[in-house]
């Protein structure tokens, strides 16, 4: 196939070709970057939470008035929760994983707070903590009842004898050595022994750069607020939510049950900004691709119309239908290639600007390559309809309009 006649025919409509080429270039620049951002967010949302998120319920109780006894309330509530059919395990807990709120402190391997320490998001749980959250123990054991500290007691206020940490914390503190049985120190120089290592668990802040720096401490925080994590059998969660709310509200009049919610509520809320971005960008990408496809169809249709006579002539002197279709396909391929060549430069420039201005990761070339291939295919598909119409022009047309 000769490229030269196709090129010179295209150049007769420079403006139209230039406009669609520019459209293709802009589309590539936007789509490559947008899809890159979408993939990052989707990956972030799909990270495993490390806990049994789908079967977890969280409850908050808030005590008030002189009649409120925090310690007794926690004990009775947990007895009540653990006795409910469908409940696998329940623990008191100070904060909710992946909710955006929590506590973090620094811990090190020597009692000197000026030496290297690592920041860890900590959760106070009781002996049922690991079972209730549904974390997987990679080594060691869960807490025992004797280890659980109750905060307001004067002599052991902030102290815990043991901790359970994620693999990521263990790696940060001890490198490749096993963490089990080793001692860690908090900022006050108080020590605790590592009794368990869990595979993974995401902490309070989903956008934090160390999301899995999490540690469980055997402790019941002081009141008047207390939260519970309740793990249910699969399929029982929704029915248990209202039942728990009712039973706990009736059991104690010196407190308010402020909410009983599935963990997924907090997960969705925390990822809302990311899922919002995915939705927004998805819509923009879809619209942009459709508008550009329409532009290609429009340009090709225009070319078919103005070239009716030439096409008729070619058919009259022996060109087959397939030759006509191929002509338009090649024309489109040339146009798209020029467009994506300019578009690749634009895409990298735009990606560079985005990463510099908003400290996002730099655009990976694979997204531009994928975009180029997609636009080639899109162009060929879009041009096919008008090309088939062109091929249907009867050779007689050539003679009739002279």
């Amino acid at each position, binding site marked *: 196939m000769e490229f030269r006649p196709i090129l010179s025919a295209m150049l007769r409509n420079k403006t139209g070709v230039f406009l669609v080429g520019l459209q293709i270039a802009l589309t590539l620049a936007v789509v490559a970057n947008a899809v890159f951002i979408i993939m990052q967010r989707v990956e972030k949302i799909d990270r495993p939470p490390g806990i049994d998120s789908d079967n977890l319920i969280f409850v908050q109780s808030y005590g008030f008035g002189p009649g409120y006894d925090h310690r007794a309330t926690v004990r009775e509530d947990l007895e009540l929760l653990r006795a409910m059919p469908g409940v696998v395990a329940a623990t008191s807990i100070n904060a909710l994983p992946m909710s955006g709120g929590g506590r973090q402190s620094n811990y090190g391997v020597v009692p000197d707070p000026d030496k290297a320490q690592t920041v860890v998001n900590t959760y106070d749980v009781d002996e049922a903590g690991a079972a209730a959250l549904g974390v997987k123990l990679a080594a060691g054991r869960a807490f025992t009842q004797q280890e659980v500290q109750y905060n307001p007691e004067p002599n052991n206020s*902030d102290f815990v004898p043991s901790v359970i940490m994620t693999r990521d914390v263990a790696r940060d503190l001890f490198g490749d050595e096993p963490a089990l049985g080793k001692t860690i120190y908090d900022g006050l120089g108080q020590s605790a022994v590592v009794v368990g290592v869990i595979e993974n668990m995401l902490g309070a802040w989903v956008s934090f750069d160390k999301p899995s720096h999490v540690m469980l401490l055997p402790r019941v925080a002081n009141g008047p607020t207390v939260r519970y994590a309740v793990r249910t059998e699969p399929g029982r969660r929704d029915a248990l939510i209202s039942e728990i709310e009712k039973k706990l509200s009736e059991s104690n009049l010196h407190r308010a049950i402020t909410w009983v919610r599935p963990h997924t509520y907090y997960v969705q809320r925390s990822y809302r900004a990311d899922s919002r971005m995915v939705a927004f960008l998805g819509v923009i990408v879809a619209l942009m691709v459709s508008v550009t496809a*329409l532009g290609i169809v429009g340009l090709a249709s225009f070319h078919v119309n103005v070239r009716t006579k030439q096409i008729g002539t070619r058919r009259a002197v022996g060109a087959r239908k397939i030759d006509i279709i191929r002509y338009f396909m090649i024309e489109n391929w040339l146009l798209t290639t020029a467009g994506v060549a300019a578009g690749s430069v634009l895409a990298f420039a735009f990606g560079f600007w985005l990463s510099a201005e908003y400290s996002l990761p730099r655009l990976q070339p694979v997204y531009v390559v994928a975009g180029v291939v997609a636009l080639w295919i899109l162009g060929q598909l879009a041009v096919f309809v008008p090309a088939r119409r062109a091929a249907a022009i009867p050779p007689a047309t050539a003679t009739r309009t002279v």
Partner: protein
Amino acid sequence: MFAYHLRLALKSLRRTPVVAALMIGAIALGVGVCITTLTVYRLMSGNPIEHRNDVLYTVTLDSWDPAQPWDDRQPELPPYELTYTDAKALLESNIPARQVVMRKAAVVVEGDPAAHVKPLLAEARTTTKDFFAMFDVPFRYGSGWDRAADDGAQHVVVLSDETNEKIFGGEDSVGRTVRLNDGEYKVVGVLKKWEPTPKVYDLNNGAFNAIEDIFIPFSIGIAEQLPLAGNSNCWGNEVTNSFEDFLNSNCVWLQYWVELADRGQVEAYQSFIDNYVREQKQLGRFQRPLNNHLRHPDEWLKINRVVANDNRVLVGLSFMFLAVCLLNMIGLLLAKFLGAAPLVGLRRALGATRGIIFRQHLVEVGVIGVGGGLLGIGLAALGLLGVRSLYENYDQLTRIDLTMGLIALAIAIASGVLAGLYPTWRVCRVQPAASLKTQ
């Protein structure tokens, strides 16, 4: 003449309905997407206290850890909140015309067991009295409290419109009592519906959340040791087991605002806080370099990056999408106008000047612009309905007001005309003889 142009324009559009629909659709889509993202952006970047921006200042002092800055990414910033020790000391100054120290707390509003009304946990703002005047808070009934209430930790409460609706069915409840955390509180005021967006007086505890349910004197929160419901950030290694420990700690958790009338007051107050910090340095606190700031609300909004980067990226991408839509429209217009070139040649031959042809086509693209703009506003309204389902508590973010509607129309017409200029210019250069010959 305009009516004539308009009639011809409509006729011309009707002649090629598919192309006309495509062009109007392209503009509408472009404008719709832009207006959707712009509306969200504009409301996020708004300053609800614009009219008092010149006299209000938030106070920040660098009381943070000598070993590391408050924010690694912006090491020049002091913490955004104050310690209790410092806030108490600043309250002693009588330079500001008004000043407020405040924080969020959790309070139980007791129900009525006899009537099966369950207790509910309310969000309270514990604040000194000037809050209401400084932030121009609108009252439906009654007013805020006075100095005596602050000084004596009197049991007074101001209810939000919504809370008053919940507890008293919306009637004038001034003078009645509510039971909070086992104590009797006298209602002194009820607010009108108030939705400062963003919540400029406390940007770090949910900048787009609704206002608090109830407002009580700051001193009560201290006297009754109400648990904190907002952020607190601590450094160093202090034991903070009791509320008393917490009050005396290095933790920052209080918002502080002052009202200063003129340059002189600002200078006097700045030197007051600087002197205070110098004194504290003598006592071994404030070991970081002197870094105290008074900031206007608009500056504060910018520093706290209320508009997420995501929103800026989206606005940028929307305008690139609009550009693609316009390129598309230029292509279609060009094809359409040049397709009708013989007609233009005929009109020119019959005596129409270039000017008339030019205006004729400009009216036509204007019609496309207006049509696309109106449809675009419709699409943006739909888009914002979709956006509303993606946000929580953000109802006020998703309304198209008159300004936004006008901006939409202006973008549509401007882009329509801009896109139409080149094709119009091309069609005006049609040589009557050349196009007549081919007939």
